[in-house]
């Protein structure tokens, strides 16, 4: 229990320190333009990694469609922001409201996916989230939404049916996605979202809910037999994870002038999973570090870009083999035994 607390403070300290350093560097003008452009995506990926870690590491269910929730949040949140351009002139407030809307829609999507799946056991969540990611991508690629003073106009497949009053505008244009977005995401907003995410996730993990969720992960049958409502707790964790991904999606989308559904494909879901696995399943601080490093690294190693995905793949396999194979497990525990101390206890 003690270790978890220190871990929590490390996470908060790390994020706050990083924020302070970046703010000082920005103020003194020592930061490159490309780095500045990456700050918001880094924040978004950190939130994505932490929220997926909640599903994969803490709940112990594999989700292969996390980008789908991000997409949901990105599209709904951005639409909301565009609709509020006049009614809410303050950009910070507008971004905040949009992120809340993105989170709500992400959460609703998570809830709808969760209803059929979370009562089943096994790898079903992986399959259905994978399917969900593809469905969302294919829907947003064919959805046309217009907006005028009378409200929203929806049309699937073509924009022909949409007739807008004067002053109205198209929000989503099928495969072209949303264009002419006013970039209102800021690093400070990203920082606040990360702190909020950390607060929510740590609060959840340390509460009665978190203990129940981890009990389900470690032994579902035992948890059920002492009266833990498995579906309810699984659903709680999953919906929170999806809602956070939705908020991150809004933050991410509002950093670009155009956003298309193909940005949030299966590869993005896998990329986020790689972040979580590299950072360590269930380790929030690890997720933050790996999300930061793996977003900066490709940028820093531009010449290396062709090998990037190959290296990702190899790293993923090697990390899994190294941490899970029975041979290396024996080796690690032998080393730990030789070093003495209470290493084993700390693992808990």
């Amino acid at each position, binding site marked *: 229990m003690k270790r978890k607390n220190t871990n929590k403070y490390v996470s908060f300290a790390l994020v706050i320190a990083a924020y302070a350093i970046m703010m000082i560097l920005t103020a003194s003008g020592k930061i490159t333009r490309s780095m500045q452009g990456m700050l918001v995506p880094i924040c978004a990926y950190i939130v994505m990694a932490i929220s997926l870690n909640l599903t*994969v590491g803490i709940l*112990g269910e*594999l989700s292969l469609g996390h980008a789908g929730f991000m997409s949901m949040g990105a599209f709904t949140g951005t639409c909301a922001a565009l609709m509020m351009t006049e009614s809410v002139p303050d950009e910070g407030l507008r971004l905040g409201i949009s992120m809340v809307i993105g989170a709500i829609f992400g959460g609703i999507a998570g809830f709808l996916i969760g209803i*059929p*799946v979370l009562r*089943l*056991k096994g*790898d*079903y969540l*992986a*399959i*259905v989230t*994978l*399917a*969900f990611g*593809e*469905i969302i991508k*294919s*829907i947003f*690629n*064919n959805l046309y939404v217009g907006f005028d003073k009378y409200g929203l106009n929806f049309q*699937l*497949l073509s924009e022909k049916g949409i007739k807008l009053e004067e002053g109205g505008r198209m929000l989503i244009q099928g495969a072209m996605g949303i264009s002419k977005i006013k970039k209102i995401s800021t690093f400070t907003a990203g920082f606040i979202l990360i702190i909020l995410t950390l607060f929510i996730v740590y609060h959840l993990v340390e509460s009665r809910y978190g203990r129940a969720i981890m009990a389900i992960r470690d032994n579902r*049958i035992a948890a059920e*037999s002492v009266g833990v409502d498995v579906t309810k707790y699984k659903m709680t964790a999953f919906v929170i994870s999806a809602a956070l991904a939705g908020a991150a999606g809004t933050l991410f989308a509002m950093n670009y002038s155009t956003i298309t559904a193909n940005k949030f494909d*299966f590869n993005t879901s*896998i990329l986020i*999973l790689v972040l979580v*696995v590299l950072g360590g*399943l269930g380790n929030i601080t690890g997720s933050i570090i790996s999300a930061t490093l793996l977003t900066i690294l490709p940028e820093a190693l531009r010449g290396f870009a*062709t*090998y990037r*995905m*190959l290296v*990702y*793949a*190899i790293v*993923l*396999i090697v990390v*899994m*083999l190294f*941490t*899970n*194979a*029975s*041979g290396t497990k024996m080796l690690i525990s032998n080393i730990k035994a030789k070093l003495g101390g209470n290493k084993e206890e700390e693992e808990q």
Partner: protein
Amino acid sequence: MRFLSFLISGLSLGSIYAIIALGYTMVYGIAKMLNFAHGDVIMVGSYICFFAMMRYNLPPVVGVILAVIVCTILGMVIERAAYKPLRQAPSLAVLITAIGVSYFLQNGALLLWTSSPKVFPSIIGNGKIQLGELTISHVTLLTVAVCLVIMAVLTWFTGRTKMGKAMRACSEDKGAAQLMGIDVNGTISMTFAIGSGLAAIAGVLLCSAYPTLVPTTGSMPGIKAFTAAVFGGIGSIPGAFLGGLLLGVIETFAKAYISTQLSDAVVFSVLIIVLLVRPAGLLGKVINEKV
């Protein structure tokens, strides 16, 4: 007549899905893991056949046999290198490793063979059969025929041969099978070999019907065939067959009568609905958990 021709092309596409789904379902049945790299083995098989035919001017039959051999070996190597050390590990770890292998194959192919699309030559020409108003291409007929033959052989293999019995025993209870003197590791390796060999055949058929070959060719059919396996009941061989055919037909009809762009959404929605109603799939066994 339109309906009939859609049905036939659906069955042809479904046959390809069925062959791929067999690989997924057999591996799941015996190793209890989702082999995400399966779709990419298809792609490797297609590339091997392509290079054998186009660069070395070998006859199509030799190309197909070469592809089957390479994929069989590849499947066994993947199993030995990446999955065998994780036999005792939690299923999440194995699944993530499988995704890693899938990415490895895709990006390896990208580096080796570049992303520029290759136009796959037809293995049996572009002949057609005319039945009244109905036109059926030779490739379609061949695909359906190959699928039926594979189904028949596999049913015989798992039902009648010693190796097949060993496979069924392993999928039922690995510990008990080992006590009966069955070489469990060998059997699992064999299953991967068969699945990957079938993947090569599926790859060649797939590229004969849709002749654009890129390093990501295998991933979408792989995901859909996997869906088909779950649809039919993962772990069941007739289930994979039925699921594959149904999925192919549903996809073709969705393309024809609903919309080309939304057909993927329709296919995956069907999967979710099936899981909602029958979690074990159409022909899957419902296993009650013992405490």
